[in-house]
């Protein structure tokens, strides 16, 4: 009799715990609107507009692409550029990045714009000088069979080509699916799987993606944490030191700063 009651208690507790975890996890998933239950293929980057030009005008194509869609989240291209660490010069046109931002140390290597209709992908690769190796780096991270001319064989230019004269070359890849290494993206891990068809990247799937702690999640407004706010209010000035924006040598402001320093205690 006692055993029966104990078992009943156990089952009841188990049920309660299970339903609690189940529903809270579900609630969280609904809230974030991303992760499926099995985090296998989490997200997919593609160009919502089919790429019409195959002439290799990367600038034009990028300027037409304002957003990519990762799962159901519409993320500004800027956020994806950060997440994938796409070189600045490649994204210059659409992001209005000044050309003087030297791309020599650009930490990223790949831009992948996946067309929705026909396979006319744009792949841009540059060598990395960054210690952080991103999974999206096709030449370094994706296993390429030795029988094929690996992209690593290409001479490494010290200065990546200017966006205006971007030769698009994707040959040298074997058809199939390739999984990249897990790469630390500072806010979490990124791991991608690429599909190569007809020697070109036709799809990129995120196997791992920094979700609720990611910078991209934070840049797009959907997953921002709620922070407290208040109206600023003057306080009494009995302080040791004053912190403010850097003052210039302007005499007035200078004296003000020293006055504030003196006014302490």
């Amino acid at each position, binding site marked *: 009799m006692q055993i029966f009651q104990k078992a009943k208690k156990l089952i009841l507790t188990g049920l309660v715990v299970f339903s609690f975890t189940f529903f809270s996890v579900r609630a969280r998933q609904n809230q974030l609107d991303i992760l499926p239950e099995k985090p296998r293929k989490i997200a997919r980057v593609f160009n919502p507009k089919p790429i019409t030009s195959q002439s290799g005008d990367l600038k034009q194509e990028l300027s037409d692409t304002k957003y990519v869609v990762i799962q159901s989240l519409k993320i500004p291209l800027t956020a994806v550029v950060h997440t994938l660490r796409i070189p600045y010069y490649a994204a210059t046109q659409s*992001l209005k990045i000044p050309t003087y931002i030297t791309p020599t140390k650009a930490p990223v290597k790949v831009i992948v714009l996946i067309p929705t209709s026909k396979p006319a992908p744009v792949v841009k690769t540059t060598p990395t000088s960054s210690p952080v190796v991103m999974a999206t780096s096709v030449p370094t991270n994706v296993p390429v069979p030795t029988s094929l001319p690996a992209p690593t064989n290409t001479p490494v230019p010290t200065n990546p080509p200017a966006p205006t004269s971007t030769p698009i070359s994707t040959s040298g890849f074997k058809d199939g699916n390739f999984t990249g290494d897990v790469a630390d993206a500072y806010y979490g891990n990124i791991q991608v799987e690429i599909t190569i068809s007809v020697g070109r990247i036709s799809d990129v799937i995120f196997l791992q993606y920094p979700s609720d702690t990611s910078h991209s999640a934070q840049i797009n407004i959907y997953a921002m944490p709620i*922070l407290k706010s208040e109206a600023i209010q*003057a306080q009494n000035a009995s302080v040791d030191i004053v912190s403010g924006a850097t003052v210039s040598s302007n005499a007035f402001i200078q004296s003000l700063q020293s006055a504030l320093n003196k006014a302490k205690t």
Partner: protein
Amino acid sequence: MRETRLIWDMPVTIEIVDRKNYKKSINKVFDYFRKIDQIFNTFDPKSEISKINHNELSLSSASKEIGEVLELSEKTKEEAFGYFEYFKDGKIDPLGIVKGWAVHNACDDLKKEGYKNFYIEAGGDIESAGLNENYKPWTVGIKNPFNQMEIIKKIYLTNCGIATSGTYIRGNHIYDPFSPEKTINDIVSLTVIGPNILEADRFATAAFAMGKNGIYFIEKINGLEGYMIDKNGKATYTSGFEKFLTRQDFHYL
């Protein structure tokens, strides 16, 4: 003992509480700042940074300080997802990070000399160590960006760095590297508290360039707290910021 001098075009204040031969130490710190200024002053054609920019000096034969600062700038740029730029018009201009870096080095040197209670303030950014002369944590006021004579927040710091970025004094001296023609005008002031002035300063600069998103960027980074004021006088602060608002007295001195 408190002393203010003009370095980097801005007033720099050092205060040392410990009863020691501080006069010599303070001079040493200011000498160090002058040396750093001579290396990194982009307006001086004889500085090493100018020579590098005019291809008169190679990076490999420059002082080790330059390499260190450039490495730090690149690291910051990566950590801030590009929202930190140390190239301007094709020239290296790492001044945004030099000040915090130099002040942090000076504080480390003071600690090595045995000082425990002091602060260095440079143009509104501070690194504090130990306690003030009343054996209390240093009290720091955040300036009202709309009224220079006012303080709008009082925080208590010990062994911390604090830096405020803003557009209200030097005009728009920070811009968004991704749209430089657009001025940042939705926020006017962003204060960051970190383990030292270097961390606080470099992340304050980068986060300010992110505009309203900057405070969320600070929220995500361990060890940093922030207080952002927007153009309407509304402040938003990170979840751990409030712990600096109450003074925890220390009795071990």
